[in-house]
């Protein structure tokens, strides 16, 4: 009888848990956190050079885009990580005015004005800060309360 009650209650808990699947969020990831900060700093220092011709900075631009591509692939494959992945997608979309949008503007005009650089940098930095802030808000450990309970009672 005791086992039966226990089983029924566990099944109820499983239903509760399943009903809340959509709230699952990836846990904090040290690699993501570090890489986001690194790429933010690299982007800012590259933007500081945007008053020089775009073609003179091709190597650095290529390296930055490659790094961004690697992080995006990593974020795409982390489970329950849609929000962070979508934030990276926004940062890199051609028609959004963040990293790639800035590079397009730079390429189009050859150089950009020195007054424009800090203003654009502020916009992109704000987006990066939200990414970093969101990663920090994530739980540091996976709280598998139900599985802990099941394991402890088997």
């Amino acid at each position, binding site marked *: 009888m005791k086992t039966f009650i226990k089983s029924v209650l566990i099944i109820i808990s499983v239903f*509760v848990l399943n009903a809340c699947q*959509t709230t699952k969020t990836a846990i904090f990831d040290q690699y993501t956190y570090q890489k986001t900060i690194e790429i933010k700093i690299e982007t800012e220092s590259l933007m500081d050079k945007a008053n020089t011709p775009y073609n003179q900075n091709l190597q650095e631009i290529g390296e930055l885009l490659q790094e961004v591509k690697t992080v995006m692939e990593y974020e795409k494959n982390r489970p329950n990580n849609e929000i962070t992945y979508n934030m990276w997608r926004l940062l890199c979309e051609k028609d959004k005015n963040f990293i790639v949008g800035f590079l397009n503007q730079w390429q189009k005009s050859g150089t950009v*004005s020195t*007054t*424009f650089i800090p203003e654009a940098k502020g*916009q992109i930095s704000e987006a990066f800060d939200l990414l970093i802030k969101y990663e920090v808000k994530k739980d540091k450990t996976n709280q598998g309360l139900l599985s802990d309970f099941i394991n402890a009672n088997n």
Partner: protein
Amino acid sequence: MDIDKIFNQLKEELLGIFNNSFKDLKGEAKKDLEEFLVQSEEKLRRWTLLLASGDITQDEFAWLVKSQKDLMLFHTLYATGVSKIKLGHFKNKVIKTIISTIIALI
């Protein structure tokens, strides 16, 4: 150049996005986004003045204004993510309560 006219038009557009995307938001998330709107106002005024003084080109001005609209999307994602985390914490509390009840009953 009528700075106030340009500014009011931009503000209306941002408010439109705000009302469509955040009508269901409450508490901290809503406060964050209201703060974003205040910051948008300051930025738009500054950029309009930079354009009027010739410190930035029309292209650059348009780029900055669009980037502010794009940032709004970024804030939407952030607010959604934070709400999801909070909901997850609530879920954990519910499960914890169920587990405590089970333990007490057995």
